[in-house]
């Protein structure tokens, strides 16, 4: 029983770690607590859901308008940076917005196989992260920190409530999804079993006293593969080096010929994509997707990031796992109504007693 509950904790912890990485990367590079990160997680889950099950025309139109706006922002910014011509950038933005808007509209009305919608949703969420940075955070990069933090709260409010307008406040679930099952983990199941049954209720992997559903295995594998990939990206590639350089000193990085804006955009894109993956996986695992899911998950993941030492990527991964296990232990000891409090307690005590986190080096205080 204990082992089983610990497994649950590790599964949720892996998801927290994926989200926490997004907080910590952004904090590392622009020293901003990105309050909107939880909303990106929620948006990823909703877009994946919208693509896999058939949406109402209102939901499809809302999602399409929103995606179109994102496409406009990102395309406009990239084109303006590259060509310097405003009309060209506007044309490009308009074209991108129309294309993506129509594609999302069609995609929401149709039913798309789960793996494809998964990738599309992750891509859209990455775009959302980049667009938020361009619209809300970039103009404030030289303002007092308080200004950017308040803006981040505003972005989070707007996104969460926009999702409520488009999708309503009720719980949504992937359970309705029965189409296109053949593409996903269906090989050994009898004819007529739904995708849902296959993934969640179907196969269990037995290892001694432990039994693990396919979905749990999938979450753990995906999360660990992505975190390994991220670690390699940051430590072994030129892009990772540029990211670390920007985190250390943006002026020096610029002098070395690094396009700082581009690196920041990529950081937001990667962090948001990982958050969206976590959102979809948790949405499947918990079997509920709702506009407020990003708030709670965001708080837990932020605590995990603080626990590991904010700005420290391996620290965020460890912090996520520790927090997940701690919460599952609270359930084991029948303190489940207090389990959310563990995140806050961990957060407060780590900040007071060891602000650099479990794995963080003592950072110099920046003014």
């Amino acid at each position: 029983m204990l082992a089983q509950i610990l497994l649950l904790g590790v599964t949720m912890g892996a998801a927290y770690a994926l989200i926490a990485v997004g907080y910590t990367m952004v904090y590392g590079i622009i020293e901003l607590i990105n309050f909107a990160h939880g909303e990106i997680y929620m948006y990823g889950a909703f877009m994946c859901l919208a693509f896999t099950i058939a949406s109402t025309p209102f939901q499809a139109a809302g999602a399409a308008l929103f995606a179109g706006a994102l496409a406009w922002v990102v395309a406009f910014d990239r084109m303006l940076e590259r060509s310097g011509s405003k009309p060209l950038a506007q044309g490009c933005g308009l074209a991108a917005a129309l294309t993506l808007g129509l594609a999302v509209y069609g995609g929401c009305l149709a039913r798309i196989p789960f793996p494809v919608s998964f990738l599309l949703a992750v891509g859209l969420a990455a775009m959302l992260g980049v667009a938020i940075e361009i619209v809300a955070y970039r103009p404030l990069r030289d303002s007092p920190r308080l200004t950017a933090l308040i803006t981040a709260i505003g972005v989070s409010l707007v996104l969460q409530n926009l999702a409520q307008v488009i999708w309503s406040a009720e719980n949504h679930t992937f359970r309705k999804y029965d189409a296109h099952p053949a593409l996903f983990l269906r090989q050994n199941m009898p004819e007529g079993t739904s995708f849902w049954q296959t993934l969640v209720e179907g196969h269990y992997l037995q290892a001694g006293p432990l039994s693990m559903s396919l979905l749990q295995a999938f979450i753990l594998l995906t999360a660990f593969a992505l975190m390994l990939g991220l670690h390699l990206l940051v430590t072994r590639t030129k892009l990772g080096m540029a990211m670390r350089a920007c985190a250390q000193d943006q002026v020096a990085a610029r002098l070395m010929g690094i396009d700082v804006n581009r690196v920041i955009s990529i950081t937001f894109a990667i962090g948001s994509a990982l958050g969206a993956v976590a959102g979809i996986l948790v949405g499947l695992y918990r079997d509920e997707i709702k506009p407020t899911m990003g708030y709670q998950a965001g708080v837990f993941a932020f605590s995990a990031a603080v626990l590991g030492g904010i700005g420290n990527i391996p620290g965020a991964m460890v912090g996520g796992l520790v927090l997940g296990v701690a919460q599952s232990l609270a359930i084991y000891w029948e303190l489940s109504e207090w389990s959310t409090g563990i995140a806050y307690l961990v957060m407060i005590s780590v900040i007071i007693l060891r602000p650099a986190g479990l794995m963080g080096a003592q950072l110099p205080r920046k003014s």
Partner: protein
Amino acid sequence: MTQRKGKAARSSSGAWRAPWGWLAFVAAAACLPLTGNSYLMGVGIYALLFSILAMGLNIMTGFCGLLDLGYVGFYGIGAYAAAVFMNTHELSFWVALPLAAALGALWGTMLGAPTLRLTGDYFAIVTFGFSELVILITRNWTSVTKGARGFPDIHKPVLFGYEFVRFNPTAFYFLALALFSLTVFVMLRLESSRLGRAWFAIREDEIAAEACGINLRGYKTLGFAIAAAFGAMGGAFYASFSGTLHWSAFTFSESVLILCMVVMGGLGSIPGVVLGSCLLVMMQEGLRPQNLAAALAPLGVPASSIPGELRWIVYGALLILMMRWRPAGLWPQKNVAAEFAEEADSAP
């Protein structure tokens, strides 16, 4: 009261701080019950209550420049403390109110002393976590707070044998106005005091302030305790006015709402903060789905197409737009406005 206020204003500088402005405001506000409209008075009570809270938060975020994301935690502590004092311990409202405020100050000191040495972001997060813990405790400490179902039938204030009633809110309105005047008076005094100047120095440059001999931790903790006391006082009033307490009145979104009032009116500016609170409370009323539906019905907009979440989208957008184009607020305090202008000039 009038005379004291005049004195407060004479010792400070700046035309807008003249006592006549505040006296005129209070006098005008005192005329509202003449309309006899209890809906208007209800809105007025909320505007005054949120002004008190926003002025309290303004000490931290406006005067000291520290973002407090859990201010509502003190509001909640004050509300539940007053409820427990009045119902469980049978104390009168007039005793429970200062006790609740003192308890708020105590909690402010206990939370502030270890955390105020942290840099801004960490402080914001600790306060946020604190307010979430307050909610969790009010939900689960059933023996004292009556748990998640809420605290019912909180006693009303009794003054010279007259018991206040919710449905004829005139008495509550004047109580709110009195507490509001007290808060404004204290804030004006604080702003032009040695304490206030120390806070402004901390806001503008911590290192320079420390070099000038300002005890950072002491002054910040004092500020936090005073802010918390006003939050708790507002909570005690709210407990008695609403008659029931439920944890959902003390969520993070309320903290954001109060922050929004401070930011919109102008960080550090007392009249600005009051303006921001009044505007946002009015907007909250205007953006209620049923009021919006009534206003838009002549244009042929069906009520069903008006989303209930609109007001939060507006608040969020307000925060973003204000921070981008008018970070010093609608009625800025001179120093804050100068600071933001300086930042903008020095930006490349």
